[in-house]
């Protein structure tokens, strides 16, 4: 079926890009996953719009774009509250909405969180590159022409919007995440926690860090008590694979939480944020405070099962 033009970017915002759940299976070629930083919000947005949970959406950071609908379409906005409006009238998030041809969907600054997601019924059609539609911004491939969206870009979709006839899909209010200004992230020690003395490990758990403004999609940089590694070892290690959530300690001792744009690295990782809390990383904004707590593998598993159970129950309620 031919794609139809559905959205026109009138102004792009600070960083608006096409993302799905990421590009896995290409780590051997040095290709990082990319993908939605808040995967939970992306999955729910898709389900609300009548899509599979893994389809491509718009990820909007900090200051939102203005987007004109070129057809009657069903959309859903989730994630951080960037004050979405339809023709200047505020619209509710976490539910499906209809945009009429010519309507303008616009966003401003966040009331909570950092990134909003816009799903469109039928998904956003960009070519699959290595199995994913996510934009790899640093290397310039995937997504929409390998780059962030710009003014006058036209996005297309497979014409499946007619399958969702109403705007009645609503996410259970009790399951909508709360995005605070002070975050508590659950992590598991390692893989190199034994390269740090006890006082450094204690310091990581006792301290309150602040996310700095030089953070980006590669990592959340934290300001706060410096984490020293043991004195008898070098600053860097032999490069090895890393994953999103790795809490890396470079030479200056300032922690960086790695996000999805890195595949290997040569710094020590003192801890790793658990899978259930990974979507939160996409919603922490510069200036927010961050604390770490350490949990067991079993607690991490239970937390993840809890999150996935809610998504599954919501998915079932739609059928």
């Amino acid at each position, binding site marked *: 079926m031919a794609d139809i033009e559905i959205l026109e970017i009138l102004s792009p915002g600070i960083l608006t890009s096409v993302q799905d759940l990421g590009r896995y299976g290409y*780590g051997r070629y040095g290709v990082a996953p990319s993908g939605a930083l808040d995967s939970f919000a992306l999955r729910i947005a898709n389900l609300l719009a009548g899509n599979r949970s893994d389809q491509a959406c718009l990820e909007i950071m900090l200051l939102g774009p203005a987007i004109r609908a070129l057809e009657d379409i069903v959309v859903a906005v989730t994630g951080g509250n960037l004050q979405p409006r339809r023709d200047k009238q505020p619209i509710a998030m976490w539910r499906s909405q209809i945009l009429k041809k010519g309507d303008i969907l616009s966003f401003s600054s966040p009331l909570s969180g950092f990134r909003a997601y816009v799903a469109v019924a039928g998904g956003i059609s960009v070519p699959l590159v290595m199995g994913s539609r996510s934009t790899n911004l640093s*290397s310039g491939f995937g997504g929409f022409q390998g780059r962030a969206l710009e003014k006058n870009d036209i996005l297309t979709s497979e014409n499946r919007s007619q399958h969702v006839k109403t705007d009645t899909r609503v996410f259970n209010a009790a399951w909508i995440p709360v995005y605070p200004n002070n975050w508590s992230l659950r992590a598991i020690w390692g893989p190199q926690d034994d390269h740090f003395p006890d006082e450094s490990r204690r310091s990581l758990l006792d301290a309150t860090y602040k996310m700095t403004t030089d953070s980006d999609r590669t990592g959340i940089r934290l300001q706060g008590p410096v984490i020293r590694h043991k004195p008898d070892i070098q600053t860097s290690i032999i*490069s090895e*694979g890393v994953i999103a959530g790795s809490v890396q300690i470079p030479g200056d001792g300032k922690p960086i939480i790695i996000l999805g744009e890195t595949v290997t690295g040569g710094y020590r990782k003192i801890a790793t944020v658990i899978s259930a809390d990974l979507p939160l990383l996409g919603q922490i904004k510069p200036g927010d405070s961050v604390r770490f707590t350490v949990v067991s*593998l079993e607690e991490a*598993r239970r937390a*993840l099962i809890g999150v996935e159970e809610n998504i599954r129950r919501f998915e079932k309620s739609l059928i």
Partner: protein
Amino acid sequence: MGDRSLLVELGADISSSVNQRVQELFNVLDRHRFKGVLDLVPSYRSLLIIYDPLCISPDEIKTGINDIWKNPDQSRLPQSQTVKIPVVYGGDHGPDLKLVAQYHNLTPREVIGFHTSPSYRVYMIGFTPGYPYLGEVPDAIATPRRETPRILVPKGSVGIAQKQTGIYPVDSPGGWQIVGWTPVKLFDPHGQPPSHLVMGDRVQFYAITAQEVAQWQT
């Protein structure tokens, strides 16, 4: 590492024998495709196995590896290929060639001689898409990274960092000493495979002049 990856360490140092074991384990797991394993990231001395924790447990992966590992045939490696890479050394293409020469009290020509003499092993692909970590550079030209990394190293730049040498496949920041530049395309997101080099390949550099570049540019 965390609740969704296993970091399997197969040695403590950079050596071709350790790296070969990483490659063996990588090949075995790649062939067996455990359900729930999402990605494999081989590096100098370890293999990172990324999995869906609700699909497979770390213990199941460990048991699976041990079962396969018992069968020695499984770990046989494919024949490694040698890839020849033309490099324009020095000048604008290799702004740090003179510095590397001075550091070692050599002439630029001698540095080129040393750099083109070994057949390097591709230890891993990482850092950016298609970036090959090659080793080992002769001691005579092993040079520390630049104190201040460059904000932009052009795609194709050939660099040295201690006993490693590598090629920047895409424009990126970087701190390696840039001695030359190659017109060979190392990464193509639409290629099969997307990376020109893979772990275990051998790389042989040879010097070309700036005038000869045209024949590699298609």
